[in-house]
């Protein structure tokens, strides 16, 4: 099974990791530039947000999707979606308080500068929304086994019900888990404290998930 699908597994590659480590700061900076500088040159919030998301996706491809997920865990991404949307709406509503129409930047009373910086704030808000949505979309598509969020004790029951599908997923997870353990060491060298924390927990979680999945698969085949 896994021999016929070599593209499913994460392969740790020094070349890819080194390249990504060099390229990502530039991609990320360029994304922010496109977002901030959309008023003077080509670009804007949508394009810049996609570029910022692409930087995170590059990291996920090079260092493993599970490690990247552990690194990004917490409310940061979903907060950026919500704050971006709210910022855009409040920029519009604030103009009403100033006596203007909805989104009438002149109502802030700073003349042309008010319009320009209002537009740039709106572009940043759009960038936060777009990058947040794309990053979460990527991780929820990539995570594959949709039991990831189910607690461990109900996991066994769910696996037993659709054992055929999980048998394949279990195989993939087993390889991923092994790779992540190595990856934890790499990240620890980087000195990211939160990474060590997340990775310390993650292999344990995926290991138990794999165990139950393999067990259920074995039962199904027998």
């Amino acid at each position, binding site marked *: 099974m896994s021999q016929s699908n070599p593209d499913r597994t994460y392969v740790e590659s020094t070349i890819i990791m080194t390249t990504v480590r060099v390229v990502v700061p530039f991609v990320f900076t360029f994304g922010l530039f496109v977002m901030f500088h*959309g*008023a003077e040159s080509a670009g804007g919030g949508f394009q810049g947000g996609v570029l910022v998301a*692409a930087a995170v996706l590059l990291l996920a491809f090079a260092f493993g999707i599970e490690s990247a997920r552990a690194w990004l865990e917490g409310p940061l*991404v979903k907060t950026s979606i919500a704050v971006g949307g709210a910022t855009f709406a409040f920029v519009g509503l604030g103009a009403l308080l100033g006596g203007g129409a909805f989104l009438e930047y002149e109502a802030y009373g700073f003349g042309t500068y008010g319009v*320009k910086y209002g537009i740039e704030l*709106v572009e940043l808000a759009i960038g936060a929304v777009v990058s947040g949505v794309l990053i979460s979309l990527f991780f929820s598509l990539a995570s594959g086994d949709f039991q990831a969020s189910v607690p461990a004790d109900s996991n066994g029951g769910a696996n037993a019900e659709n054992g055929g599908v999980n048998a394949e997923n279990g195989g993939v997870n087993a390889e991923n888990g092994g790779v992540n353990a190595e990856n934890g060491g790499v990240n620890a060298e980087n000195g990211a404290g939160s990474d060590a924390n997340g990775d310390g927990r993650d292999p344990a979680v995926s290991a138990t998930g794999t165990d139950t999945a393999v067990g259920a698969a074995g039962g199904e085949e027998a």
Partner: protein
Amino acid sequence: MTAVSTTLAIVLTFSVLAALAAILLRDVLNAIIAFAAFSFGIAVAWILLAAPDVALTEAAVGAGITTVLFLVTIAKTVRPSGERLLETVEWRSVAIVVLLVGSLLATVRSLPAVGAADAPVATSRITEYYLQNAYPETGVENVVTAVLAAYRGFDTLGEATVVIAAGVAVLLVLRQEAYV
């Protein structure tokens, strides 16, 4: 033919070939790579047509993120067995595609030439208004951004809302509370 139109012809030919490859290749992984090449060709075509904002979007979304999302999605499927490289052609589908492409190509003759001074979009009073007033009124040098965020800001708020709503809907369907 000027240098730009020659380059454009080359780029469009490349895009058409990449699109055909994306349709005909049997392995989805190959088709996705061909589709990314198609998006890249179209992005270059937008640059040649002096539309850098659209080119940036096409390159980042079409060739970049969409390809990645396709890749992580097909990573969950199995590759087709057998050595056959190309998909078998269904002639009914070909007939529909030919009909659609033919009717679209029939409209090309009525389009103004690229960069023509008498094109409706160049002589329109609205275009004139934006070009004249966008900078004095908004202080923003990129007219596209001025139109998107100031003159049509309400539309753009709607777009951002659509992105949020679509994202939340997809994430709910995929049920990844572990992440979002």
